């Protein structure tokens, strides 16, 4: 079979037997990562000491689940503020070791100050497996549409697969060049598309008369990340533009997960991380495929290792084999625990509202925020973005959005309408905060 036809980039890893995955996990975690992190990470040591646990107490995965304490973003921020340590006590090595580190990158900062992350990576990342699945092959062009603050890892990965990156800004202003490069160089894969960029491309195409199906005809796969899109928008992109979208999501800041061509959950790589799904309000694991909070542990990161990191992300996880033949687990992102609002005792996540809001033509971009001062509220308050070209009165629009949401979740919301642009200004450009205090 030629390289272009083969299904997997690393078949020996991607289709590894389950018992082999578990053996590697235990070897890396118990034998290597935990002692390293405990000895060198000030935050991990502080948390473990407070719990009265040392690596000697953790000799099996059962003991790991029973004894290892959790950390979370609040703990990292509190350590940062208490010790004036921008890395929140996570670092295991001095970031000034320029023979180890070349750069310091940062997280997106959607929910607070971006966290700096020293970079020691060189060469392709695990994403070669995903990029291969997208359909990218040696000799192809690859549309690299992102930001600068993520560092060179994606670029190295594209080249590692033997492809050539085309640099495009993840910005509405760069849509004309995205379309031009797509037409002229006929790239086969694209990383990344997001909800706000979909909106910008649609607006540009409408104004310029661009045939997007023609412009994007060469793509075999496109990752969709950052801001999700609702089902109607996804159909417009897939059916109208002819793109096959692959949902791509971070997994608890220890890696990423991406759909395969089965589009039945996002594969995460269990040779690189250990993911648990726990009761969002407790410590017990939930069943396979049930909704839980993602708790992540790295198996590889020796620089700033996260161990039992309560991510605040609500997910479903399964370890059932996928029809694609890969043996690693799959995750479905559902929303953030911090984004949940409880109205009259009923839980509502932004994802529950998406289809109802984008079903109204003027609010079809799916830009909205849940306004909540606290988790439990008396009324569901929504700030909803609209395209100011609908030609129908805003009073009527508010009524239609209200009725659509009411029909979807059984709760009548209070709706505030604002122009789409006002919400997009709250970027970063690939996503907006879905929950606001006011």
């Amino acid at each position, binding site marked *: 079979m030629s390289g272009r036809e083969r299904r997997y980039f690393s078949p020996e890893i991607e289709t590894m037997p389950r018992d082999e995955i578990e053996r590697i996990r235990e070897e890396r975690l118990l034998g290597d990562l935990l002692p390293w992190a405990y000895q060198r990470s000030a935050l991990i040591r502080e948390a473990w000491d407070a719990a009265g646990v040392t690596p000697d107490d953790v000799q099996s995965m059962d003991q790991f689940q029973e004894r290892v304490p959790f950390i979370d973003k609040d703990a990292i921020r509190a350590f940062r503020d208490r010790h004036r340590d921008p890395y929140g006590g996570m670092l295991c090595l001095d970031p000034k070791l320029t023979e180890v580190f*070349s750069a*310091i*990158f*940062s997280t997106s900062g959607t929910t607070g100050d*971006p966290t700096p992350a020293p970079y020691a990576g060189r060469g392709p990342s695990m994403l070669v497996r995903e990029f291969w699945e997208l359909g990218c092959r040696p*000799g192809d062009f690859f549309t690299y549409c992102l930001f600068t*603050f993520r560092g060179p890892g994606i670029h190295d990965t594209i080249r590692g697969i033997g492809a050539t990156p085309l*640099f*495009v800004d993840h910005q509405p202003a760069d849509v004309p060049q995205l379309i031009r490069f797509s037409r002229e160089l006929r790239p086969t894969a694209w990383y990344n598309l997001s909800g706000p960029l979909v909106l910008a491309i649609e607006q540009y195409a409408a104004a310029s008369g661009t045939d997007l199906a023609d412009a994007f005809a060469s793509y075999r796969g496109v990752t969709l990340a950052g801001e999700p899109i609702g089902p109607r928008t996804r159909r417009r992109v897939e059916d109208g533009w002819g793109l096959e979208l692959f949902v791509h999501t971070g997994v608890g800041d220890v890696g990423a997960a991406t759909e395969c061509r089965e589009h039945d959950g996002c594969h995460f790589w269990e040779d690189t991380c250990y993911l648990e799904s726990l009761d969002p309000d407790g410590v017990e694991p939930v069943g396979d495929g049930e909704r839980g909070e993602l708790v992540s542990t790295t198996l590889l990161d020796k620089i700033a290792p996260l161990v039992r990191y309560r991510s605040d992300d609500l997910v479903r996880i399964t370890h059932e084999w996928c029809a694609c033949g890969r043996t690693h687990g799959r995750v479905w992102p559902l929303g953030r625990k911090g984004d949940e609002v409880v109205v009259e005792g009923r839980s509502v996540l932004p994802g529950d509202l998406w289809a109802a809001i984008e079903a109204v033509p003027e609010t079809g971009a799916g830009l909205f925020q849940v306004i909540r001062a606290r988790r439990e509220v008396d009324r569901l308050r929504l700030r909803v973005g609209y395209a100011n070209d609908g030609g129908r009165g805003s009073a009527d629009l508010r009524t239609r959005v209200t009725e659509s949401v009411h029909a979807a979740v059984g709760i009548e919301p209070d709706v505030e309408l604002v122009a789409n642009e006002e919400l997009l200004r709250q970027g970063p450009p690939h996503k907006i905060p879905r929950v606001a205090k006011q």
Partner: protein
Amino acid sequence: MVTFAKRYEDPPEVWGVGRIVVDGEVTPWPVAQRDVEDEAESLAPRLAALGLEPGGLVLVVAMLSQAVHAVPLEQAAGRIGALYSSADATPFDAFRVAVLTRQLVPHVVIGITGGVLDGLGEAGQDPADVLGSVPAVVTADDDAHTRLRAAGLAPRHWVKLGPTSAIEDVAGEGPVYDVSRWRVEEDGGELVISNVVPRLTEARALRTGVRGRVVEEGRVSVSGSA
């Protein structure tokens, strides 16, 4: 036939397809790995001339589409034993410039634009407070340069001359380019550039869109966009 494994170990000659923008007109610009490495070697003395030392940090504020210019700058930091960090040159990402400047205490911040200053302003931040303690602040457009000077700072210029960069040092006597690699000439008040060492994509009297003059070999003065 080149095998898959061979291609994986030996990536394509073209490192990436960036772009050159002159008067808003975009020209795709493929560069080779060796071009990027040579440009990094060339720019390392420019960062050193801004005071960047081993163990220090430069914050590069740019866009991904400017990779042909920004990545060599980032790699130049490594050549003098320093680190780099990155932020987008947009109003959206101005908060990152402010946070990273506070957290990482860079010796050089290069690439500040009017858009970044707009973003700081929208966030209620005074650019003089954010950047005032940075030893060397280098702007990427005239708007930012003018506004930072008005705020009492002493910014330096970063000018993109075709596929290379000219960067002003702390003496502030005009942006410096590498005469061993590039020839810069004037044409009707606009600077044009040619490569004098091989490059994957050849520049031959390429318009830069920069109005200015060559004040001495290796140094230009600029008066704005053409």
